[in-house]
């Protein structure tokens, strides 16, 4: 009997994250409660190491573990996003944990394992690997959402997310089991080959049914309307650093999997899934943006805003799908496909910085016993904390897609991709909805700069420096890549070319 070949070079980043997660768990036992910040330092150092390893192995292109894992630059691109978002979330945490009296040990460990889950997910070259990664990620998040145990909202959030998430996972598994039942394979490349071979046969129609089931599950993970209802409740209830983390990580991971699976494996089913995503995208943009207008709680507003961003991202996915069907002079329009996929990847990178940054500002303003999450709490902030207000303004403008910020670059490429692939209707809907979005983002800026606070003015708390590091770094990157996005675009292009080759 032969053992599967264990090729660790393919999974070095995952190995590092796993070991550091375990190290955090082990060290936690020996630490006094007031010295738990050490854990954050260990986790950060570990993530930094993982970042370096990922970058060092960026041009990798191989399939390991009997085809279960794809160690390619496509997955490395997303691993960078996960590692960075985990690092930023950890940076935001120490003071928050302290003032809300949250036990630190398992907290950092769960962030590490959740990151690991997402990394496994994007590296998955097999439905089973993807599912395992997804569950590792999801279970960590169910736990994390309920971490603030003395707060009933937090427990409620955790319970809701767990129950609904289990349903989504069940539906995903159901869809995957259909795939296995029909094709006899779980490996993505083998499924793709099977689909190519059996095009126009009866089986394909049955496969479409399982595709719909899987799409429902992924729609839940990216919080697309109407599978979004858990988002605001969970985002509001969870401790804010984790809200920041879960608003970015799982969404990015799900989009990465969608790009890989739908573009490389289900490419024969493009008309079916673009149709599905079209409906989801329009609903998501409309409902997400319109409801966000009514929110008075800034965490809920950001929750709806992140829902609406999933809608824009879906536009890019749809463009990539339709691009595969376009023929120029009888040849497939490869550049259109890769440009559309690139738009989604760049948008996700931008989304990571700006969304984490905005949440970090919310955390920076929190005070013991008063999370200060209402819009009213931001009135006159520019006078009390001019620097923070300025950073928040930049981040909000980036979320809005204002030129000069990274958010604009993302939106620009998404809309450009939609127009060049002929999806003009949805691009126009996207633009109109961006106008609606302008309303609620700008309202926060108006509150910060032009409103006077009602009632007694509370002095601002001393800002924990680590949270501010997160705010400053994300803002700097938002601006830097807003002006010079070439580096990220080149990385994304490189990995797409490699994957599609």
């Amino acid at each position: 009997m032969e053992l599967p070949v264990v090729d660790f070079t393919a999974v070095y980043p995952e190995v590092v994250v796993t070991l550091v997660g375990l190290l955090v768990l082990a060290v936690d036992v020996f630490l006094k409660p007031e010295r738990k910040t050490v854990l954050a330092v260990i986790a950060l150092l570990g993530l930094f190491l993982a970042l370096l390893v990922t970058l060092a192995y960026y041009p990798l292109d191989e399939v390991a573990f009997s085809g279960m894992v794809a160690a390619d630059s496509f997955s490395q691109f997303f691993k960078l996003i996960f590692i960075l978002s985990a690092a930023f979330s950890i940076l935001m945490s120490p003071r928050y944990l302290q003032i809300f009296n949250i036990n630190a040990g398992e907290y950092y460990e769960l962030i590490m394992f959740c990151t690991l889950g997402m990394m496994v997910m994007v590296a998955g070259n097999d439905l089973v690997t993807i599912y395992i990664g997804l569950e590792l990620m999801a279970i960590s998040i169910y736990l994390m959402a309920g971490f603030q145990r003395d707060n009933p909202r937090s427990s409620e959030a955790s319970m809701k997310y767990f129950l609904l998430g289990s349903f989504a996972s069940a539906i995903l598994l159901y869809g995957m089991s259909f795939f296995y039942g029909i094709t006899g394979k779980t490996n993505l490349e083998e499924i793709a080959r099977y689909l190519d071979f059996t095009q126009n046969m009866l089986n394909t129609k049955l496969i479409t049914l399982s595709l719909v089931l899987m799409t429902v599950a992924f729609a839940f993970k990216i919080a697309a309307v109407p599978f979004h209802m858990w988002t605001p409740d969970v985002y509001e209830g969870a401790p804010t650093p984790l809200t920041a983390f879960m608003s970015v990580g799982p969404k990015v991971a799900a989009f990465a999997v969608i790009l890989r699976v739908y573009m490389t494996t289900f490419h024969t089913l493009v008309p079916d899934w673009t149709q599905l995503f079209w409906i989801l995208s329009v609903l998501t943009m409309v409902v997400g943006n319109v409801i966000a207008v009514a929110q008075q709680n800034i965490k809920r507003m950001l929750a709806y805003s992140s829902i609406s961003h999933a809608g824009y991202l879906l536009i890019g996915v749809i463009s990539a799908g339709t691009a595969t069907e376009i023929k120029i002079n009888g040849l497939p329009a490869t550049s259109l496909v890769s440009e559309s996929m690139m738009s989604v990847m760049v948008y996700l990178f931008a989304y990571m910085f700006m969304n984490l940054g905005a949440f970090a500002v919310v955390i920076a303003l929190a005070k013991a016993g008063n999370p200060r999450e209402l819009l009213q709490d931001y009135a006159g902030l520019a006078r009390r904390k001019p620097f923070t207000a300025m950073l928040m303004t930049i981040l909000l403008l980036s979320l809005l897609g204002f030129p000069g910020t990274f958010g604009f670059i993302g939106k620009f490429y998404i809309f450009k991709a939609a127009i060049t692939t002929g999806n003009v209707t949805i691009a126009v809907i996207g633009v109109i909805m961006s106008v609606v979005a302008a309303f609620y983002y700008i309202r926060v800026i108006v509150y910060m700069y032009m409103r006077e606070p009602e009632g007694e003015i509370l002095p601002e708390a001393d800002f924990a420096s680590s949270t501010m590091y997160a705010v400053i770094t994300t803002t700097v990157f938002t601006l830097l890549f807003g002006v010079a996005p070439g580096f990220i675009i080149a990385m994304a292009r490189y990995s797409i070319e490699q994957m599609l080759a």
Partner: protein
Amino acid sequence: MLIAVVSGFVFSLAVPLLHRTVRNVTDWLVVLLPFSLFIYFSFLTQPIAAGGVLSSSHAWAPSVGVNLSFVLDGLSLLFAILISGIGALVFLYSSGYFKGHSGLGRFYAYLLIFMASMLGLVLSDNVIALFIFWELTSLSSYLLIGFDHERSSARSAARQALLVTSVGGLALLAGLLLLGEAGGSFELSQLLREREAIRSHRFYVPIVVLIMVAAFTKSAQFPFHFWLPNAMEAPAPVSTYLHSATMVKAGIYLLARLSPVLGGARIWQGTIVVVGAITMLIGACLAIKETDIKRILAYSTVSILGVLTFLLGLGTRAAVEAAVAYLFIHALYKAGLFLVAGIIDHETGIRDVTRLSGLARIMPVTALAAAVAGLSMAGLPPLFGFIGKELLYTATLQAPLANSILTAAVLLTSALLVAVAGIVSLGPFIGRTMTLSEKHGGVPLTMTAGPVVLAGLGLLIGLLPNLVAGRIVSSAVGAVLAQPAAIKLALLHGLTVQLGLSGLTFALGVTAYLRRDALRRAVSRFDLGTALGPAKGYSLTLDGMTALARLQTRILQSGHLHIYLFIILAVTVGLVGSWLVRYYGLMRLEGWADIRFYEFLTALVIVAATIVIVRASSRLFSVVALGVVGYSMGIIYIIFGAPDLAMTQFSIDTLTVILLLLVLYRLPRYARYSTTLERLRDAAIALAVGVLVTGLTLAATAVPPISQISSYFAENSYLLAKGRNVVNVILVDFRAFDTLGEITVLAVAAIGVYSLMKLRGNGSDG
């Protein structure tokens, strides 16, 4: 040219710091930058007039065709000169206007950002770069309008201006992306070559509509004109710079810049002429209605912007000539008048023209400048305004369509504007000298310099029009028409129709001025704007959106878990079901007779147990029934030949039941929270899911399985693993890793059970 644009941005970063350290020098330093730019652009008039075009390009994101490329032609040069020249005067003025204000450094920074973006806007050859600068002007104008934000009206005005212009901005982005797609490039110079392809492209109409929305919002054209008067909450230097001389003309610039590419078609010409004409008339009427000096000026600006728009829409040579000249003239006199209005407001604190009088004795220099600028606005010789008016009439008389109607409309507008000129530049300065509450120390020189210089220029160019005609106006007209143009301007052409019309205008205007109070009342009576106008529409839209958002929240975001689950399941059933119905032929509906009795019995047990789970009144019952379901599933596995799976199922179910019992034991008894109706609804969705899954199963079984793994195990268990018991071999050999994993899971779960039992023993912690 890159330096010309970037220097403003760089300087804006340094200014707040400078202001804190070397306060006195800063005032002069900030004037120096626009002034030197003005000198630089003035020297360029000669080569540009000679037909040259300056260009420079810097790669930004070349892979997608976005570059920082700049081109300076006649049109850009005209704007660049206005931006830098008036900019220098405005910076100078601000130092007096805000003397001692603590936020002056910040103000300079915003103003510099604005100036740099505006320069970038008019110099960009790349449309995406143009869009970026366009948005930056919106943002900096938002910061500038809201600079004095003590009043709530300033805040809502700033937000209104930003919202309206950002709607336009996004429309512009969409329009330019489509344009780039149609023309195959983002470079304007390239697009100009592709104009035929663009005009016949299927995106032509969307492009035109989107670009018009952008231009109309920025340049305050009907029905978006309402934001400009409200933006008068801004301090006077801002109103001068943004709302009369430069930013509001960005829309005009866009139309002029793109008219060689997009112009000519009926939709372009017709829409622009009609919108421009409506704006022109509405602006003039509303200007008469107002009493606040700055709002009067704002509406008259709206009116002039309408004039410029409709002239560009006409697109004839005479019209473009008039548009370019008028743009220049308007910038000179209106900036002057706004500065004067700022001085009046600054010195007296009053902006109501009915309460202002006799200021000429207090501020004689200002009064003189105002009078000259006012005469230019009224279009009297020998001022530059007069030349403009002559050109305007020439253009309407030669218009290719409806020339009599257009001429009449222009006549009416101009007459009203003559009255407006009287109201703002004459009224406040003549009559009984008003008493000012505080002791007045004279207007500082920094503030009077602007109006005096601007008014003087109006007079000078009026007398010697060919000072600018050849150098600036001709090359700008040439750029708009995309062909060389040589223009001679003259003050008098002899006794022409135009001269007669000018005379008539002036006579009507003077009459209107003398009867201004009656006129104001008349216009107010017919004013439907407040009830039906677009401003009302704006606030209704905002309210409507909030209401819609609340409604959606109530329906979709109730916070109840079962509603969420209901929606998720219903949508899933809907989506998958619709596909299933489409391919209903997939389902295999025969073969019922093959079902054996014990299979049927097992299924029956599962169904019965499920009903017990749902209906049971105690948790214990439910958990046990759940166990029954699990075991029956295991039996099904055994029947269909998967003993290893059955083993796993049995052990997991045993564990689940134990764990659940231990945990649930502590919970209170079931309580009934839902009404009968809700239970029926839940039953319905459960039934729907059941039907769906049944359908899917029927469809799945119709496909023959790909491989028979059981036969492989049966054949190879002895050969490969040396074991006769197939089940054992599968568990410990073929799937040894699986088994190891399962054992680990069970072990971990057992630890959990143990700790739960220990917890029960203590019985304290809940």
